[in-house]
């Protein structure tokens, strides 16, 4: 058991345990904080896989952006100290059953399948390579999806402003 293995299992446990707590706790603010730890665990797994850039993006966008957005919307919409209503036990049991059956089926399929590995030389991704490939228009370039995502983000930004604008009371 090397140090790297121990770190992997700790990160995996952090991710899964805080994920479970995030979907089961009845205090919505705690759910947001557990979600934060789950996302940090995923970023840690990306660091463990030595994909530093995507781990940094994960921390900046998810941990720094989306979680803060969720926490602010909780502040705006929830009364302090109010618990989420209890769910019907039947619904919880059947949801757990459905999720567990799906999980078991997926894992069964996975362990019956043997993946073929490439024999090519492994590439350590550095930021310069990622940037060049992202904006290259040649083979293996991602310039078109990059531009499409930019348009999508612009559309989402305008859409958010339009949706969240307080509509003025109409004068009768």
């Amino acid at each position, binding site marked *: 058991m090397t140090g790297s*293995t121990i770190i*992997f299992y700790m990160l*995996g446990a952090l991710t899964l345990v805080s994920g479970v707590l*995030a*979907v*089961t706790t009845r205090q*919505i603010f705690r*759910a*947001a904080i557990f*979600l934060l730890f*789950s*996302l940090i665990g995923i970023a840690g*797994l*990306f660091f463990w896989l*030595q*994909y530093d850039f*995507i781990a940094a*993006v*994960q921390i900046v*966008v*998810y941990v720094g952006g*989306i979680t803060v*957005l*969720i926490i602010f*919307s*909780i502040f*705006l*919409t929830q009364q302090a100290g109010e618990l*989420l*209503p209890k*769910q019907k036990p039947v*619904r919880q049991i059947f*949801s*757990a059953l*459905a*999720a*567990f059956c*799906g*999980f078991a089926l*997926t894992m069964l399929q*996975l*362990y019956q399948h043997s*993946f*073929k*590995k*490439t024999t*090519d030389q492994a590439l350590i*991704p550095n930021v310069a*390579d*990622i940037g060049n*490939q992202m904006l290259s228009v040649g083979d293996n370039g*991602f310039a078109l*999806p990059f531009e499409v995502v930019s348009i999508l*983000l612009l559309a*989402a930004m305008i*859409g*958010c*402003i339009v*949706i*969240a604008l307080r509509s003025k009371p109409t004068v009768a």
Partner: protein
Amino acid sequence: MEPGLYHLLFISAALFFIGVFGFFTRRNLITMLMSIELVLNSVNLNFIAFNKYLWPHRLDGLFFSMFVIAIAAAEAAVAIAIILNLYRSHQSIDVENAEAMKF
């Protein structure tokens, strides 16, 4: 046991179905949004794991997960705008109270 591809796939499958469970049981829109974030994150982990262990000479999985992150950010922003708007009109963000599509 030395962690490999199957360990990562186990974590990502478990996280995916934790998110699905949350989506089934929660009735508050913000917590449902959190479950969706968990599902999207498990997909990212899957892409990165396959890229690392099966095609380490390419970067495609990394780019896919980057686009997934961008789209998840856009989706979260739009969803929260809709939730705030719904809260203003209904004083509640429970899905059971939001049955009308238009009023």
